[in-house]
């Protein structure tokens, strides 16, 4: 028993490196700064996670509610963020300036704040909505907020003093989520989730591009 204790204690003292996490800057401390690379890493992790959840929630919704209704044919309606011009292929993405791309990302994230809040609350009103869909909606909304904060931090670091990011696209789809006709209402959800999946993928892709470009000098 005693030997075990001695071993444990010595191990604790000796093998410290793998145990503790990196020190996080306490709030308000001026000199301490998380590196930009670290910020991007966290942002990419978040965006990856958010897109993963969005894909899952879309697939679940599609399986459960959209079968045989031909929603896909109507889903070419467009998303509320379609008005924002985003790169549509690799060339465009590589040509756009990183500040513009960052602003774009922040704009898209901001535009999704409102819809996500309402998605989380309205999806509960769907008849017999499974728990997996419900908690995912809530989780996406939370993580999106965190990502937005992180991105604003990054923007502040990359281009401080850049005020007036007026990239924003308002969402007016709340009434459609509350329609009385079930078919129309379900289609509204389908459309929203489809747009969410797409936009979250865009953001994830742009962030990975930016990370490789800015942090790893295009040599990921």
């Amino acid at each position, binding site marked *: 028993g005693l030997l075990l204790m001695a071993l444990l204690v010595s191990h604790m003292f000796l093998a410290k490196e793998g145990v503790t996490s990196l020190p996080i800057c306490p709030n308000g401390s001026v000199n301490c700064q998380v590196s930009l690379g670290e910020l991007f890493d966290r942002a990419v992790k978040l965006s*990856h996670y958010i*897109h*993963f959840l969005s*894909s899952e929630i879309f697939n679940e919704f599609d399986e459960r509610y959209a079968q045989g209704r031909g929603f*896909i*044919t109507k*889903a*070419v309606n*467009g998303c509320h963020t*379609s008005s924002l011009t*985003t790169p*549509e*292929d*690799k*060339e465009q*993405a*590589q040509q756009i300036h990183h500040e513009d791309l960052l602003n774009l990302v922040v704009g898209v994230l901001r535009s999704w704040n409102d819809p996500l809040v309402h998605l989380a609350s309205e999806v509960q009103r769907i008849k017999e909505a499974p728990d997996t869909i419900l908690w995912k909606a809530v989780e996406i909304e939370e993580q999106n907020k965190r990502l937005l904060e992180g991105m604003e931090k990054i923007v502040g670091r990359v281009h401080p003093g850049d005020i007036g990011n007026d990239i924003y696209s308002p969402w007016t789809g709340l009434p459609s989520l509350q329609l009385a006709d079930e078919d129309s209402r379900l289609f509204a959800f389908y459309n929203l989730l489809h747009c969410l999946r*797409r936009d979250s*993928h*865009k953001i*994830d*892709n742009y962030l*990975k*591009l*930016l*990370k*490789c*470009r800015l942090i*790893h000098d*295009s*040599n*990921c």
Partner: protein
Amino acid sequence: GQQFPGKPKITRCRSLEKDTFSCWWKPGPDGGLPTNYTLFYSKDSEETVYECPDYRTSGPNSCYFDKKHTNHRTTYNITVMATNEFGSNSSDPQYVDVTCIVQPDSPVDLSLETTTSAGVTDLWAKWSPPPLAHNSSNWRLHHYELRFKPEEEEKWETVSVGVQTQYKVMNLNAGLKYGVQVRCMLDCGEWSEWSPERQIQIPSGQLPPEKPTIIKCRSPEKETFTCWWKPGSDGGHPTNYTLLYSKEGEEQIYECPDYTTAGPNSCYFDKKHTSFWTIYNITVKATNKMGSNSSDPHYVDVTYIVQPDPPVNVTLELKKPINRKPYLVLTWFPPPLADVRSGWLTLEYELRLKPEEGEEWETIFVGQQTQYKMFSLNPGKKYIVQIHCKPDHHGSWSEWSSEKYIQIPSDYRVKDMIVWIIVGVLSSLICLIMSWTMVLKGYRMIAFILPPVPGPKIKGIDTHLLETGKSEELLSALGCHGFPPTSDCEELLIEYLEVEDSEDQQLRQSHPSKNTRLASKETDSDSGRGSCDSPSLLPEKCRESRTLPSKLPSQDVREVHENNAGSGWETQCVASSEDRALPFNIAGTKSSTWPAANVHPSTFAYHSTVDAPKVTLSTTNVNVAPVLVGNEEKHQSRYSTSETLCEENLEKQQAVEKMHSKNDQSTIQVNQNRLSEKSSFLNAKLMDYVEVHKIRQDEDAAVLLKHKENSGKIEKYTIPGTSKEYTKVSTVVDHNILVLMPDSRGQHTPVSQEPAKEMSQNLQQGQVEKNLSYCLPAPGECQREAGGSEYMDPSSFMPSFK
């Protein structure tokens, strides 16, 4: 009567063979006389009448015209005459057209032809009439009949053609093979045989093409993509395929930019034509002469259809770090087309490996890194390893990379082998030695290793006696009578009386040495335990136990009653004695032999009408009992409180009362305190030693006096002027009288003289004990019982007060 024959009748004329024919007649009534029949015929309009050439060949009443006599295209005028003696009779003439009764030949040269026009296919059948020997028969019209059927079927469909030698068959199923036959007939006569069957294949219908289907669309590097489709049937005509698409949000329809790069039935979209996060609506149209047909629309967003090529440049490196097991490092590169460096496409990898001869692959997900370290491979084995990759989101896994073989070098370290060899040799040597010694020394070795278990040896016990089972003899050998103990022996189980009173503490402190001595004595397991199985004491005890108890109680009771005014003092005394809970000593190994350990103090006590002490009694009992039973180490002595020194004086009584009450509490307290104390040392002190103070007549009993004087003066024992003397308590009589042992060492005045007044009275009435009897009056003459021990176990004299 006889008369001329009836008229015969020609029934039929048939041509059974080619170029011959026969006629048959039916005779009329023959008139009763034999009749002769003759057939006459003439040809056409000629006058010549001929007679039948042959009456026999075709049977009776027939006429056979052979070839010579058969002329086609001739009408025979045939009559049959019946003749008898009276006269003759002729039949009506029968005009026979030979051609009509001859089966014609089949039509010849049947030919079939299909023609298609305007999507309709017709079958034309043409033939020729049968050739006739005589050319002049063509003026006769043949009627024709045609029949046809599909090859596989049984039933013919027959059509009457008329006199024409061709016919158009309609409503034939396309793609089937049909058989056709014709036969002919002259306007009179019979049908010819069917011509030989001719067959013809109706060609497939001319249709527009079937709907094509789009198989899949793929992007290998997330920059371009290709779609493939599968054609349907072409409807019999060469078909053209076109791919048309439109993009989300746009009205315009485009055509595939490139049909060739990706092979047949495909469309390749290059970088310029590929957009992401946009849904394409793609359809394929098949067109041929007959029409066109479009596939179902296929919606695709290129983001989700990425399937990369397999990873490349898979390399292996064996690393051999010092002092550690060698391991393998596997490295690879992403496929060349995938742009991972810019971050546009992020790939995840997975590898699988198995031993060369193995069946199942072990799949390991690696993540986004492009190297992997393998530690747990078996040396000397050959492994196969493969890697594939997939985009981090969506998409599908690539094909596996080509197989890579790994040969793990076998790792025979010389050191290890030597160690094992030495170990093996040594162990075999040891085994040899062991076996040799076993063989040689045999039993001695066994005895050395496994010594035999000694049997029990008890002095005085004859094992044979045990076996025979006569307990009497055995026990007498042991010196014990009356074993197992009877109920009389219960009190004997009380080892000795331990005096405890208010001066407990005084006692304790004042008798350290003696108590320790006593304690040490007590730990001797062979010392008198006052039970029936103690060899030294048993005889006396057992004997005395029988004699004594009967006498005492009544006397004591009487004594008590005499002495006491019936005041509470008696009860108090009783109470106090009741407090004397369990006066025996548990020490050593014999606690288990004291069943009477559970004997309640009530056995000693009179009936007590006082409840309070009873309460205390019970509490003390409760406190004590668990301690006693089974607990051999602690609490050596259960001392009894004895306020037995109850004074006869009322004052003393009262004092005693007070004391008793005090003592009750104090003893309880002491008991409780004692119980809570862990040291048995104190307990040992509370043994059966009582400080004897020489009592003068006017003095109270020493013990009591002390307490009365000064409870605070616990420590001081001495009465000034009094030398300390100790004596053991031999017994307690009447619960309030201490019978002290005479001290062999020193002179002693029986302390208990005052209380002994009563005692003596008691005792004189009956011999309580040998000791007492001679002790009290003449202390000096006290003799100890020859027991060897310095004291008698008072419990043996203990009267039963039940």
